[in-house]
């Protein structure tokens, strides 16, 4: 279904800020059409990794190869969706989506993508009139209209309430499969990662410490035994590091109960 060549190849990526090593040595291959979720505690370097993939940040060492070519500067294959949406408050929804499009871009194109994210009737609203979830839908529409091969999601749902998140999960999953995108989602929510991705990667202290494939059909049911098993497996790994004293057995017994 996809070409053999991976869309992204990261090898021994290292990044530091003022002597503080955020990413130590990251090796990762992203294949076309994959949905990867990167999880980890805050400050583990997961957002930095995403910013490096977008070309917004240059690694101190290591290489990032995009479609077989080493990346210099911005990654034009990718569009990134930020946690805070970053809509221009002085442009109406329609014009925010049209940002950076060529003049001859069709109105239908914008209307279509707004319909896809369920905001066709808000085209002439100001961003300040929208709810948090609606703002993120606009941000998603703005990214999608460029038909990026790679969609980078930097905790886009972090600030939303639980119900809105579930709605957004559905939307993101739908659009991802419909457009056959490659998507990389950075999140601190393990359930969200397992619900959306077909590969979950855990980063701790600047290194990939766990890689879990998720072989569950979409749409995923959160009460599926494999689903809860995967969630607790990943959580165990995270928590196990934090509280060394507790045995894994105890942790895995108590965690699913916590989740329900």
């Amino acid at each position, binding site marked *: 279904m996809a070409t053999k060549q991976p869309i992204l190849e990261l090898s021994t990526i290292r990044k530091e800020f003022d002597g503080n090593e955020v990413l130590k040595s990251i090796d990762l291959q992203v294949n076309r059409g994959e949905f990867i979720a990167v999880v980890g505690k805050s400050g583990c370097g997961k957002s930095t990794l995403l910013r490096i993939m977008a070309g917004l940040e240059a690694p101190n060492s290591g290489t990032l190869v995009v479609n077989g070519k080493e990346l210099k500067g911005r990654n034009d294959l990718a569009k990134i969706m930020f946690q805070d949406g*970053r809509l*221009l408050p*002085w*442009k109406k929804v329609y014009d925010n989506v049209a940002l*950076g499009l060529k003049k001859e871009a069709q109105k239908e194109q914008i209307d279509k993508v707004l319909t896809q994210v369920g905001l066709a009737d808000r085209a002439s609203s100001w961003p300040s009139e929208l709810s948090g979830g609606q703002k993120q839908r606009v941000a998603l529409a703005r990214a999608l209209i*460029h038909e990026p091969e790679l969609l980078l999601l930097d905790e886009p749902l972090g600030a939303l309430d639980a119900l809105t998140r579930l709605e957004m999960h559905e939307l993101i999953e739908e659009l991802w499969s419909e457009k056959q995108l490659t998507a990389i989602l950075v999140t601190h929510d393990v359930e969200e990662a397992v619900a959306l991705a077909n590969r979950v990667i855990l980063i701790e202290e600047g290194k990939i410490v766990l890689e879990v494939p998720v072989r569950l059909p979409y749409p995923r049911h959160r009460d599926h035994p494999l689903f809860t098993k995967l969630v607790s497996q990943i959580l165990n790994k995270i928590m196990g590091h934090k509280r060394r004293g507790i045995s894994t057995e105890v942790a895995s017994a108590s965690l699913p109960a916590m989740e329900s």
Partner: protein
Amino acid sequence: MKTKKILPWIIPIVLLITWQVSSSIGILSNRVLPNPVDIFTAAVDLLKSGQLVSDVWTSTKRAFVGFLIGGGIGFALGLVNGISKISESLLDSSIQMIRNIPHLALLPIVILWFGIGEEAKLFLVALGTFFPIYLNTYHGIRSVDPSLIEMAYVYELKGFSLFWHVIFPAALPSILVGVRFALGITWVTLIVAETIAADSGIGYLAMNAREFMQLDVVILSILLYALLGKLSDVMAKLAEKQFLKWHPSHQM
């Protein structure tokens, strides 16, 4: 609803009536303060002779042209210094130094340089309006949210389109604050300049009337300044309303 509309007018109207009545029954001498009807008659007379229109027009033109020159230069420099680091280190500290000289203190030297011609007034108004617009433009551009600039970079905006879609609208609220400040300064500057050195305009009208003890015309001139100042402020507010529709503080 209706009382709310009437409410702000009650005090001015009561004051006006008290003023007129106390003048009519002789408590308030006409040599101290002529009554509203007298002032109104003076205005009508001056209107008929055409002098009122010509003086108001002269002053307005000065205000407008001076504002345009000073504001234009202030805007351009604020823009350049906001965007370019080199230009900022070259110019900003010198501008800040000059800013500390009150521009009206230059009046004597301006009269020596330009006499009482148009240039003197335009120079002072331009100088007065330059600083608020410069400062607010510079500050507005400097405080554009860097995360929006980064977002624009992702969407491949650069050069003029980056400026037009992101930087300028982000700086606009601050620039418009500068415009309102500058408009206030424009009229204050003009009042001083026209009163001391002019052969036309509202200030000249007032000084001329003083020589002939036409107290009603003097008061009329003061009221004209107040009216024009208020008018410019209303216009600036309308501009804010128009250009900052997106701003939550302008949405009701």
